[in-house]
């Protein structure tokens, strides 16, 4: 964990200016990066290792979760060179099952909590949910912030809730979902990122996946800037997780180019960067096999997660 002794908490009433058009132009520029050959294969495998394979539906039965866990461990059994994904991400009541299946595999178990996706539960119930998920075996908690409080300007409320959930996490890592699609402006995204980071987040995450727009490149870039500024000030590295809307390998590689050119090589690891996604994994796999064999692939040959 970061050294908080000398940390000066910024005044969140102050706004870090972000120019919408400028940041969107910058983000679009990463889309012009052309990733070829070896560098492409490397990045595809890296991206696969960064996937938080996710299912967050009311219809998530134990059977569905079992399937997902197996996909996480053996994305493409035909090729032993293919790495595992970083984690699976489920609701708290499926954590125990997932933890059992994944035990010893190296795949992390992430659970959403804190009245996901709205965050509109009582503080007590939200804390209980965090503790429950950790007790069931989750080693990563994906929380949601109270957007109503943030948009009302009650920044201390949001800061305190993040700090409280962080404490409730114990040894588990905390990912803080900002739900950027509800924050409207990039300056809000930046402010919410700063609040989450200073309150103790290990990761900041764009979205629940339940609100459109979910992750976008410019939103992620603004969050990467917040992470970078925090690192430049404190030397501590916070992770980033764009979630929702990243469905194809090409987009994932552009995200990686953005991470590389904004935060540098140190962040090109599942410890500090994740993709919250479900269908992305198979597209990455298809592209990996295409790179290896030269043949364009069909989804029929890749198992559904």
């Amino acid at each position, binding site marked *: 964990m970061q050294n908080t002794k000398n940390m000066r908490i910024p005044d969140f009433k102050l706004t870090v200016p972000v120019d919408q058009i400028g940041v969107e132009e910058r983000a679009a520029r990463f889309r012009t*990066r052309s990733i070829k050959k070896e560098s492409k294969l490397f990045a595809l495998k890296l991206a696969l290792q960064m996937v938080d394979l996710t299912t967050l539906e009311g219809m998530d039965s134990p059977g569905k979760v079992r399937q997902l866990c197996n996909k996480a461990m053996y994305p493409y059994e035909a090729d032993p060179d293919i790495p595992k994904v970083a984690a699976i991400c489920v609701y708290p009541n499926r954590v125990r099952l997932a933890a059992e299946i994944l035990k010893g595999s190296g795949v992390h178990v992430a659970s959403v909590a804190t009245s996901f996706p709205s965050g509109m539960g009582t503080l007590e119930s939200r804390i209980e949910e965090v503790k429950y998920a950790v007790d069931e075996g989750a080693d990563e908690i994906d929380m949601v912030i109270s957007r109503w409080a943030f948009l009302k300007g009650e920044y201390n409320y949001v800061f305190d809730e993040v700090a409280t959930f962080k404490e409730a996490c114990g040894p588990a890592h905390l990912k803080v979902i900002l739900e950027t699609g509800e924050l409207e402006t990039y300056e809000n995204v930046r402010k919410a990122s700063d609040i989450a980071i200073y309150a103790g987040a290990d990761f900041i995450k764009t979205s629940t996946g339940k609100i459109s727009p979910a992750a976008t490149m410019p939103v992620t870039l603004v969050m990467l800037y917040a992470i970078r500024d925090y690192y430049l000030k404190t030397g501590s590295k916070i992770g980033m997780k764009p979630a929702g809307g990243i469905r194809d390998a090409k987009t994932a590689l552009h995200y990686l180019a953005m991470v590389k050119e904004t935060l540098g090589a140190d962040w090109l690891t599942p410890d500090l960067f994740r993709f919250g996604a479900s269908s992305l994994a198979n597209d990455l796999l298809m592209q990996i096999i295409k790179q290896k064999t030269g043949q364009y692939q069909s989804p029929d040959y890749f198992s559904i997660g």
Partner: protein
Amino acid sequence: MSEKELTTRQNLRFDELWAYDPAPESPDYVKIEEQYNLFIDGKFQEPASGRYFETINPANEKLLSRVARADKSDLDKAVAAARKAYEGVWSKMPAKERGKYIYRIARLLQERAREFAILESMDTGKPIRESRDVDIPIVIAHFFYYAGWADKLKYAFPGVDPRPLGVAGQIIPWNFPLLMAAWKIAPALATGNTVVIKPASSTPLTLLRLGELIRDAGLPDGVVNIVTGPGEIGNAIANHPGIDKIAFTGSTEIGRTIQEASLRTGKKYTLELGGKAANIVFDDAPVEEAVEGIVNGIFFNQGHVCCAGSRLLVQEGVADELVHKLKMRMETLILGDPLDKNTDIGAINSKGQLDSILGYLTDGVESGLQIYQTKCQLPEKGFWCPPTLVENVSQAHRIVQEEVFGPVLTIQTFRTPEEAVSLANNTPYGLSGGIWTDKGSKIFKVGKGIRAGVIWANTFNKFDPTSPFGGYKESGMGREGGIHGLLPYLEISQ
């Protein structure tokens, strides 16, 4: 960030782990003739002298082609063809038909955009990302824009009856060869003038290809004539009695001689000359976007841009953070093969230009300036200059006063808006200026204070056919683009 925080600042690693593999556009797609002739009266014609000069790829010094060396008699022929076309066809044609020809050029260019982009990068050394995403799209847009003006001129200027001038002589530079050609040809044709145009001798290929396209578009013979050759031909154009109007883009030094010749011969003239723009960053600016704007302002096209933001003026309170972030950003700039899609910084356009840039840097070192350059590897062949910062300069330094026309940014700090404006204006130039602040009223105040023709606030180096471009003071006169861009090609009388 405070000074104390700066001391704990960590450095990020941008050069390790994951390097992009080469992703070049294939030059094979573009067929380059061994030799190009002059485009006069709708035909490619051999020069009277029978002599040709070489044009090379500045990224690898390889010969691209040989291009006709025009002399005075060739120019006479081109002017005569333009005059004949003006009097016989172009000025008599219904304006809407004229417009349709220009639309045709735009469409044909759209179809062949990638070909033109590759060729432009080969001949100039600019990255394909720029020729593909900036130069050629704006070329096309420019023809589209002015095509539409052809039959609407009577609405452009209230109370007057605008008429074409006759034959326009146009002289264009090597930094944006096709773009500058479009900026000149499109409004000239739309207003009913015919054209004799001369590209820079180091970058003639895209304009010659445009000549082929214009021929293929079926434009009447002689409406556009292209003469290639040395600088003297430009001078001859400026002095030619058969030419009614001069449009010149290039250095202020040459611009002066063009103005002198035009005044003496009574020609109407417009000049787009040099610049030494200040890019002013206030402490309330969106810093990350400002860094991007600074990079785009000075490293776009290797700094071969007359409106480049070559002087960074940064308010003291944000200077350390900004410069640190600028340096980090510079480490991620990829220098190399202009045809590689990932290249951010291409080749310097010519040996001569490289020597000139390096001369400024050598002088700077000798006068004790701190020069910071990125760690990128330079290719062995070709002409290259890494992105460069010159820190702690003062207004008196030559590198702050003169146009370097390369990827070299000087950095000065200031304390108050008034000081920033006076530093910005302390130059004979007045082409452009940049302002970065989150405060709207400050943009208007400072923007008004800067004596320059283009102000980019919270952005930089943006161009659009609808937007007039041109300088104050020694940066030139007249505007290109927009409704104002028509005026230099029209006789206005009540």
